[in-house]
């Protein structure tokens, strides 16, 4: 193998699959997604993977690269390569459909379970709610709203691995943004949804999600906020 060639191991098959290894020429400014695309176009047309925007907006190209979940489109080969080798696996804690494609159903179902949808308190006939951007609650909500649902945090979280029913960082980060949305009226039910054994109280605060979130969000802080609100609700007899 020459120096300008990369040895790329890619997961093939479903959960019982195995790695296939390809040689890909190294280029400047090459991303991991470029590698996968090259393999599919020129070396193995049967390879399945997901991507759409290629520029870190859509969140569909997340995979496990050399053991860490990341967006492949925003991961330069030069930053992740180890001794000329790159290992690309599907995201963890989600069922593998084929090759690098996982079934995200559980992940998104848990957003719904955590009451991650807005519950309006007004109708279109009411005045538009005035929310100051500098308001304390609005700032807490703003800190978490840039999540694009890529599943990197979920795949990194150890608690998700141990407890398959655990809601996970992304769903609870979403719930926390709504808890701080003054226009939302679904908080009593939301706090009941995120309390309990599969919710915020099971977070170990290991902050793997914070470490790996490509958007630099802090789901651990969001979950800590949910813990506080949950306990307050319990003390008020609202749970």
């Amino acid at each position, binding site marked *: 193998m020459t120096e300008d060639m990369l040895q790329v191991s890619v997961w093939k098959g479903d959960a019982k699959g195995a790695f296939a290894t390809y040689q890909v020429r190294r280029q400047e400014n090459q991303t991991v997604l470029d590698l996968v695309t090259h393999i599919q176009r020129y070396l193995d047309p049967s390879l399945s993977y997901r991507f759409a925007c290629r520029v870190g907006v859509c969140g569909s190209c997340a995979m496990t690269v050399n053991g860490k979940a990341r967006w492949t489109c925003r991961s330069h080969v030069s930053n992740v390569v180890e001794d000329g080798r790159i290992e690309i696996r599907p995201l963890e804690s989600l069922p593998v459909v084929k090759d690098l494609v996982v079934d995200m159903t559980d992940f998104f179902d848990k957003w719904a379970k955590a009451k991650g949808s807005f519950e309006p308190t007004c109708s279109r006939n009411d005045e538009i709610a005035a929310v100051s951007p500098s308001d304390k609650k609005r700032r807490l909500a703003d800190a978490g709203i840039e999540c694009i649902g890529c599943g990197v945090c979920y795949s990194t979280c150890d608690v998700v691995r141990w407890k398959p029913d655990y809601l996970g960082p992304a769903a609870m980060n979403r719930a926390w943004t709504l808890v701080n949305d003054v226009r939302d009226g679904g908080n009593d039910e939301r706090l009941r949804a995120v309390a309990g*054994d599969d919710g915020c109280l099971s977070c170990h605060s290991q902050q793997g999600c914070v470490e790996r979130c490509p958007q630099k969000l802090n789901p651990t802080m969001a979950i800590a906020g949910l813990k506080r609100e949950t*306990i307050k609700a319990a003390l008020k007899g609202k*749970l």
Partner: protein
Amino acid sequence: MMQNTVRSETWLWLAQRTSAIVLAVCIVIHLTTMIIAMQGGLSTAEIAGRVSGNPMWLVFYGTFLAAVSVHAPIGMRTVLLETTSLSTKRVGLLTMLLGLFVFVLGVRTILGLYQMVPVS
């Protein structure tokens, strides 16, 4: 039923955090006293001389024990639920027994030391 589970899990969580705060204070007092008092090495006579017949120490170690008996079983419950495939009911029973065992042992120790006649 499910709502009851959510509620009881939340109270268990709160009980464990509250007992942790009590433990943090108790452990500091306990260790500091040990380090200060144990200059000549640990001995039954020395411990008995300090704590026996002293209601203040009885209350202190009683509080310490109560916090341990609440804190440890809840923690063990979480560990077992996350690392084994035992059912919630079985884990609950096992850790409740553990808590009871720790509590009974502790009560025997504390009362024993309180009633012990100091060796002069």
